[in-house]
């Protein structure tokens, strides 16, 4: 039989398509069969199957065991286990991110060219608190440097600044809720 598509080569593949109860049959050669797209424009489809990648990277179940507690991690909020996350390639809820945190850096690094931290848009409601927290972190670092250098007056000044910011944070949190 000759290929239905090119009409040149001999057909070696039969493609059956069922649509609205009707079955159509195409006899295709190996070349046309390889080109036979299922015509459904997908503007966005996962270019790669995430769960496949994940299971390739973490082939053994070792990865799913919490290194501290030595047991399989389960997210209490949605019931997803880490192996389930690997198998599906999807998180069950926001809490999964915290529950699986020890294993996530490695995964994010692979998907995002070595990056593990968000640096983009911050929702306005988080904006102020997050900014203050980052400032406090920075001040604490400076404080350590001052202590090491025995600049205690400077360290005390920084400590006071941290206190002011911390109280702002607590005040902001309570008034915001």
């Amino acid at each position, binding site marked *: 039989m000759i290929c239905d598509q090119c009409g040149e080569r001999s057909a070696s593949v039969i493609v059956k*398509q069922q*649509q*609205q109860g*009707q079955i*159509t049959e195409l006899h295709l050669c190996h070349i046309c069969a390889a*080109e036979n*797209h*299922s*015509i*459904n*424009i*997908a*503007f*966005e*489809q*996962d*270019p790669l199957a*995430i769960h496949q990648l994940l299971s390739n990277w973490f082939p053994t179940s070792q990865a799913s065991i919490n290194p501290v507690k030595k047991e399989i991690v389960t997210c209490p*909020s*949605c*019931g*997803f286990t880490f192996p389930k996350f690997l198998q*599906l*390639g*999807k*998180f*069950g*809820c*926001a809490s999964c*991110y915290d529950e699986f945190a020890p294993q*996530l850096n490695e*995964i*994010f690094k692979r*998907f*995002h*060219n*070595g*990056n*593990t*931290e*968000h*640096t*983009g*848009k*911050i*929702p*306005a*409601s*988080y904006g102020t608190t*997050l900014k203050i*927290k980052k400032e406090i972190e920075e001040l604490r670092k400076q404080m350590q440097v001052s202590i090491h250098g025995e600049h205690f007056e400077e360290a005390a000044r920084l400590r006071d600044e941290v206190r002011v910011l911390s109280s702002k944070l607590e005040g902001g949190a309570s008034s915001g809720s």
Partner: protein
Amino acid sequence: MAVERFLQPRASSWMANDGENVDIAMSTRIRLARNLTDFKFPFSFTEDEALKVDKEISSVLLDKGNELDYTFSHISIEELAQLQKEVLVEKHLISPYLANSQHSSSVLLSDNEELSIMVNEEDHLRIQSLQSGFHLQDAYKIANELDTLLEKNLSYAFHEKYGYLTSCPTNVGTGMRASVMLHLPALTMSHQIQRIIPAISRLGMVVRGIYGEGSEALGNVYQISNQLTLGKSEYEILQDLENMTEQIIQQERRAREAIVLNSPLVLEDRLYRSLGILTHSRLLTTEEAATCLSDVRLGIDLKMIQDVDMSILNELMIFMQPAFLQQYADKPLQPKERDFARAKLFRERLNKEGINSEGEDLA
């Protein structure tokens, strides 16, 4: 029913043919993925939660949309017939994933069809902003404004370290996927595209054909998008993608010049043969139509073909698809009948615009 107007074979504004580099960059899309704090993600939530998420997001959009001068139509996916869903997919207004959704889900569409907000797709919220041509910044601005409006009225799942939390680890951080659809016939003809694709993938971006998963791009249309969503700001991601897209556009221009220089007559012959097929054939498969559309599009870009309106080609790319043809014919069509309907559609749309179907003026 609210959906009817969106099913018409009528061009959406993002199918128009204006904007910079529109001869190569056909359309731009920005997608933002968001989830709400108080509900489990769609892979684990209950039907009850799905309903609540749908209700909460929809009511905010319907009530507050006017603050940004939008009027949204709310369409519940489960109330749609299969064919209606397929038409919305073919028009890029919903994803295939949403069309197959197993739980309460919906889409909210702006009147001009430039904004589509999918509820309970893979994430609670998918904001999609579509623009014609190469307009990454504009498309982002529109999506971002809506996102900012929504975050004032909804509580987003956001993490200090990881950013916007999404179902899939490939979207976490900005939750943003930016894409440009590119028509690259000369890079394809000269096989240069096969070198470009792997090179780009090493830079946190990805290029692929828009039709299905095959390595070959039907109709020479490719989509370039950012792969990375964590560790770079939205601004940086858009900048990178913009620079890369500009480079590809330049390479395509150079490849076109080379082909015109080396074999102008062979090229012109091929392009006009394709125009002949589109305007005269009686049976037209999707593959053949896509190939010929690409040729005619190139013919117009190179000023070899003068009397065809580019925006009609953009529309035909959408309307030649199976669900649209059946919607247009107002009845289910078998594949062979579709080929006939497709050929008829092309003859009607192209010949109406001044090309004589007998072909005298092509002499």
